[in-house]
């Protein structure tokens, strides 16, 4: 493991009103790896991802305990700029979420909010982001077409490109392939594997197989608790916990 983890979660608890959805969870996420956080529905993976870029702030009546450190700095400290944090820690959602505007404008959305207005600079950002998400060749002829007009898989890669346009350090992917066909899924997994060269990825896979295909490390969660964590190969070959084994082998879930 790297000396300092990219993200360190320390004794995190998270509550929606009185219901506790994350229980005393500690986890270190090394840089330039794909960590898959998996578990059955309602095990808290989505919530965990959302606490990492403070999108959980928008939930009314939620509160939390513990700390989350990004490069050693508490992201919930008072002097932290939430917008800057979210620029660094991007998010790809469960369903493709293009905004109702052109492909170009979707990618340029984030950079524009940061004040980049020059057409040339934006053009470069858009092309670079689309190339990194392996989408450029498919859409370069129709950048001004509606983002709603491309296929679901393309839309999801567009969403990845949109995050990449902000040059993030971490990307959170919440079941990014649910509802996509196997070919689209394979393309997204391929781009994730390429992306980890330059950034850190936290993935909530939509099934165990996906975790096995792309993850360097895996973390198994159940009912808001972290059950087991480690290199993917080790956990899948020799799960230490009976519940992990049961879940991986398909005995439940």
């Amino acid at each position, binding site marked *: 493991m790297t000396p300092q983890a990219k993200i360190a979660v320390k004794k995190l608890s998270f509550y929606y009103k009185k219901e506790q959805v994350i229980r005393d969870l500690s986890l270190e996420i090394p840089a330039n790896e794909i960590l898959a956080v998996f578990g059955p529905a309602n095990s808290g993976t989505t919530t965990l991802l959302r606490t990492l870029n403070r*999108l959980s702030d928008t939930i009314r009546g939620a509160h939390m305990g513990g700390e989350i450190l990004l490069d050693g700095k508490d992201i919930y400290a008072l002097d932290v700029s939430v917008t*800057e944090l*979210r620029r660094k820690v991007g998010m790809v959602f469960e369903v493709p979420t293009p905004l109702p505007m052109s492909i170009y404008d979707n990618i340029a959305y984030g950079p524009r909010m940061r004040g980049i207005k020059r057409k040339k600079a934006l053009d470069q950002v858009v092309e670079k982001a689309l190339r990194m998400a392996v989408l450029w060749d498919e859409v370069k002829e129709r950048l001004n077409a509606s983002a709603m007009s491309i296929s679901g898989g393309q839309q999801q890669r567009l969403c990845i490109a949109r995050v990449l346009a902000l040059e993030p350090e971490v990307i959170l992917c919440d079941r990014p392939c649910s509802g996509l066909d196997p070919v689209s899924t394979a393309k997204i997994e391929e781009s994730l594997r390429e992306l980890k060269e330059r950034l850190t990825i936290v993935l909530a896979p939509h099934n165990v197989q996906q975790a096995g295909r792309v993850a360097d490390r895996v973390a198994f969660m159940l009912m808001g608790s972290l059950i087991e964590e480690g290199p993917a190969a080790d956990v899948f070959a020799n799960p230490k916990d009976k519940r992990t084994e049961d879940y991986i082998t398909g005995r439940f879930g």
Partner: protein
Amino acid sequence: MSVNNTRMVSFDGTTPKARRLNARQTQAIAKATIWAAAVLVILILFAIIFYILSKGIPELDWEFVSEIPSDMGRSGGILSPIIGTLAVTAVAIVIAAPLGVGTAFYLTEYTYEGGITRIIRFGAESLAGIPSIVYGLFGFIFFVIYLKLGWSIVSGGLTLAVMILPTIIRTSEEAIRTVPQIYREVSLSLGGTRWQTITRAVVPSALPGIATGVILGIGRCVAETAAVILTAGSALRIPTSIFAPTRTMAVHFYILAREGISMERAYGTAALLIILILLINIVANILVNRFVARGR
């Protein structure tokens, strides 16, 4: 559909006496009823419009729209009421649209559902149900007399602004609420501030709905009589400032018909009123579509 046509037989072998309608028959009846309702409404609407236009359009000529009324409106044109209508409506919209849309954004984006929002919404709903003559009386007492604005375009515009505010608030609120929550999350997750999220992700999607609310407001302003006659007066001169009294087309129409001055001219005014509202709708739609098309 042979299944539907077989006679129903009970388990004891007898045919049930009271036959209930099957699903297909119910469907056919429902369809016919809904069709009839729609056709009836459209027929009535077109009958009214056709009647007014057929009586009014023969009155329309260049003189009618380019000259001020003379002899109480028996002859001359209706230039000053046209100007009065546009001026009073413009004042009302300039005040009510920003306030109403702003309130709607406050209610939807800046507060959580709670006591205050419920009070504001209840207030707006109650205001929407008040007869316009009551607004007229309020405007007369408050703007005309207390604020010493006199019978004027400002008094009329302010009164109408108060009157249409609830409509604009409610329609805008609905429009903003229908914007998918995920758009906001996407914008925030891309490092947007709340304000950036509203202006860049929410407004473009909500704009057609907001515009509908504002257009409804314009329509009510243009058509309003009672509230305007008490606050803007019924002067026939061309107004020279927004503090001058004026007469709107609806008021002009009302006076012409009510006092038996000239039914022909009244129909002419009504026809022009309908055409004006139609034009406003068309122009507003084109503007909104152009804005929306830029995004899609």
